[in-house]
């Protein structure tokens, strides 16, 4: 009896062993395959191009013009920040033509350059004329075009900086600053200088205004 029981156990063990062997043989190829497979993934990050511009402060030109004061200067500035790999362009334009007006009462002629559109040193206001123009300076402002000054002149006397070059406003954009690379995240500041002068003629008394729009565009 005991002999028969041992034989049964032995037989059953063999069957189990065979079964395990078959399972192993079935599973083995998959395990071998997993050990040699490779896979790549691509990680994508989009850095969107953007540009910001600060809110420039409105400018009150100084000193006031009058019967004993022929000149006045003013300034404002904009800070542009961009992550565009190819940089940005900062351009300005006026809302009206001419730019500086006192309603329908009187107006200043836009500064007239010897060569239209080419900034020139201030001082060419002809007798009998009254004119309004602008210049610019800053890290991204081209000195060759706008001069080498780093201030807008004397707000006490209204005398412009002689190192600056001026031009008259246009209702279409004129570039005052640009760069071909990303800016620091604090941005790059460009200053704009305004100048007005009457020469042997009186501008009619009153309050004159010009609305100037600066647009920063990612290149």
């Amino acid at each position: 009896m005991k002999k028969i029981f041992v034989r049964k156990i032995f037989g059953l063990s063999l069957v189990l062993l065979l079964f395990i062997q078959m399972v192993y043989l079935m599973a083995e190829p998959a395990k071998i395959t997993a050990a040699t497979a490779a896979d790549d993934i691509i990680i994508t990050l989009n850095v969107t191009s953007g540009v910001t511009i600060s809110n420039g402060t409105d400018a009150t030109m100084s000193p006031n013009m009058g019967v004993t004061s022929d000149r006045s200067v003013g300034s404002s500035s904009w800070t542009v920040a961009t992550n565009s790999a190819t940089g940005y362009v900062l351009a300005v334009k006026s809302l009206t033509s001419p730019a500086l007006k006192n309603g329908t009462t009187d107006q200043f002629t836009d500064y007239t350059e010897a060569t239209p559109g080419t900034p020139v040193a201030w001082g060419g206001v002809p007798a009998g004329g009254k004119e309004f123009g602008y210049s610019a300076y800053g890290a991204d402002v081209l000195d060759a075009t706008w001069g080498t000054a780093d201030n807008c002149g004397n707000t006490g006397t209204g005398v412009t900086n002689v190192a600056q070059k001026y031009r008259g406003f246009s209702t279409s954009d004129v570039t005052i600053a640009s760069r071909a690379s990303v800016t620091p995240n604090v941005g790059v500041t460009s200053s704009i200088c305004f100048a007005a002068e009457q020469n042997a003629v009186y501008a009619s008394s009153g309050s004159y205004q010009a609305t100037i729009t600066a647009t920063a565009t990612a290149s």
Partner: protein
Amino acid sequence: MKKHFLKQIFTSSVIMMFLVQVIYVYLEPSEVTAATAPDSVVVSLTVDSGITITTPTDVTMAPNIGISSDGSIGTVLWTVKTNKTTGYSLGVKASASPALVSGANSFTDYTETTNGTPEFWSVASGQKEFGYSAFGTDVTGLGLWGTGANCGSGSTPNATLKYVGFKAADKTVATRNTVTPTTGIDTTVCFAAQQNGVYVASGTYTATITATATEI
């Protein structure tokens, strides 16, 4: 069967490409807009109104009046400059009434037929009077002072000017409603004095006349 399947794939691809193109064209402008940043500033310039008047030298009328000379004339010129949009007015007045005095003696201020309305120079017999007129670019428009362009000659006032007696209150002699040239506008005031059938006591007679230019 296989040929039909390929045709379906090709058609589907074309449709997909077209759809992608439409979406791109739709989105492109907004992306460009997003890449620009505008800001506006208002630039203000105040032109203060102001007015100036020249300070001419005092006037000595000529010739002297005496027992053989009854009339005398004098001239002064003020230049007014203003940038006031609505212009200015220039008034004159005397500091005393009558204006031309020498101690207790005096000339009567010119008497007009209609009080205050300038008229051609004429002094009645037994009277001694002192008056004034004006001419200049901004005088004419008032239509009060005649058409003369000088104060007369010798001892005789210009016959085409109209005269009035001084008052202690301002009387307008010139005005304009626009900005002046920077060289200003000249206004000439003519003085005239006359005795007629009566002697003025000898002495030095003076009148202090104030001209005031006022922005309108």
